């Protein structure tokens, strides 16, 4: 019988716990497919965050660490410095990476740590029930910004890709989205490029993936994807922010 589709071996058979319509599942699959295509499953060590992806260690079919909140880049540093030939990645959300773990990601980046970070930005704290995130848009209603994010009171969203791309240690920084087939294909290309650079021993690589959170945004999955296009992508423009490899 001809096989027309097969789930990547780099995902386990554990059922994902993510909410219906959440795009974490797509992002997991893209990362897993890239790891399989690159043939690095036996030498990959991943680091899961605290947040919605806290159980990622159950899903990626490779050696995994579960880190404390925001510390995944420090944990990945310890792993990569112990096993320089391993393929190491962190998978982090916006609260984890852009709030409590800001110091860790900035310094891993500026040191040029040779691992790959998949940064999932859905502009909200999902796991804890929809609180304001560092990436919550101005005016966006969350459970801790019930009148909408007031930038006069609590400041502006952190634009992680723009910020990190200013650091000399950043080798490859790209922002992608998974709201459409076209963007999913582009996202996979960028994720693959980031891992290829890592495997070639280049510097720090990060792919920011704009994601949706229908549950905590209070929308249907379709409405949520429309909100990504109408609200998030104008604030967080897609594109490659740093690609040292393109100039080499």
């Amino acid at each position: 019988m001809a096989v027309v589709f097969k789930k990547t071996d780099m995902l386990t058979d554990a059922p994902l716990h993510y909410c219906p319509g959440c795009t974490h599942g797509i992002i997991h699959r893209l990362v897993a497919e890239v790891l399989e295509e690159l043939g690095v499953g036996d030498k990959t060590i991943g680091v899961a965050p605290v947040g919605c992806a806290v159980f990622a260690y159950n899903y990626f079919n490779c050696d995994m660490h579960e880190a404390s909140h925001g510390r995944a880049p420090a944990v990945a540093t310890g792993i990569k410095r112990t096993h320089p030939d391993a393929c190491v990645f962190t998978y982090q959300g916006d609260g984890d990476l852009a709030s409590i773990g800001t110091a860790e990601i900035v310094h891993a980046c500026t040191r040029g740590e040779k691992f790959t970070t998949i940064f999932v930005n859905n502009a909200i704290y999902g796991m804890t029930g929809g609180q304001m995130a560092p990436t919550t848009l101005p005016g966006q209603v969350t459970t801790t910004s019930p009148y909408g994010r007031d930038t006069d009171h609590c400041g502006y969203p952190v634009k992680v890709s723009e910020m990190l791309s200013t650091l000399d240690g950043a080798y490859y920084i790209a922002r992608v989205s998974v709201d459409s087939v076209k963007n999913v294909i582009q996202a996979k290309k960028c994720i693959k490029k980031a891992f290829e650079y890592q495997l070639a021993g280049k510097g720090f690589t990060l792919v920011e993936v704009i994601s949706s959170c229908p549950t905590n945004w209070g929308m249907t999955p379709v409405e949520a994807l429309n909100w990504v296009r109408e609200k998030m992508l104008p604030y967080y423009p897609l594109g490659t922010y740093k690609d040292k490899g393109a100039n080499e």
Partner: protein
Amino acid sequence: MEKHLMKGAEAIAEAAILAGCRQFFGYPITPQNQIPEYMSKRMPQIGGCFLQAESEVSAINMVYGAAGSGARVMTSSSSPGISLKQEGISYIACAELPCVIVNIVRGGPGLGGIQPAQSDYFQCTKGGGHGDYRLIVLAPDSVQEAVDFTYKAFDLADKYRNPVLILGDGMIGQMMEPVVLPEAKTEFVDKPWATTGRKGKDRRIINSLYIDPAVLEQINLELMKKYELIAKNETACEEYMADDADIIIAAYGTTARIAKKSIKELRAKGIKAGLIRPITLWPFPSEAFSKAADHAKCMLTVEMSCGQMVEDVRLAVNGKVPVDFFGRVGGMIPSWKEIMAAAENTLKGGKN
């Protein structure tokens, strides 16, 4: 036997390297900077990794990553920095990862001072971070012991898959003494649980999250069993003129060293004084104190703190004899004369 004149902090660093430590993650803080400085010089010479982290929080999480992937790894800091490491230490304890943490204690609380203190006893022996866990805590009283305990700490950590803490103070870290260094270790235990990449085998997960309370209870109970085993096998103390003593002085580290001089002087005056010096602060040598309480008239705990270990001594003695306390704090070091006077006062039934 070749002797080297070494500063405590540097001796600890060299002992770690001889024990096979090849990963060190640290952050500057006085009075322990000679450890990371020494490591930054030596690690590149031997193919190891010294990395200055952006914070103590990051340093301990680098330790978590390296320990989980099989490294012999160490970090060092001093009191305020150890406070910052507590989150990571709790995770490391739950994930049962071997590592060595050095605390060269300074006066607190808060930013405190930079002179020697023993006021981190509670933090180091009673948890410090969240949850039910224990560190193996070794307290050297000389540079030679700092070397020997650091060397041993890596084996203990591997044997029990548990973090081991070397509790020194500014005196131990900064003092220079002649030391005999051990042989470089060449044989290490296998760590089949470590993440090294699957390499064709089943994948490994380093984790401290157990969302099902029934499972988490079992994890806790298994940890407790391990701690009981450690207490059974590894509890250590030194007894000095304690057999016939009317008064037992309880002290560890630098303070114990000073107390020995006080005891000699007390004996010269005809007062039967002795010392019990806990070497493992956890597991605490309760039995030694309990037995001594069967013949001694009283005890005096001396610490560079406002009275922390004294609680464990009182628990061990369980009311059999009075346990008095004398302490100097904030970086002040008790003199042998002060300890002697305190002991005489205790013997008279006075309270220090």
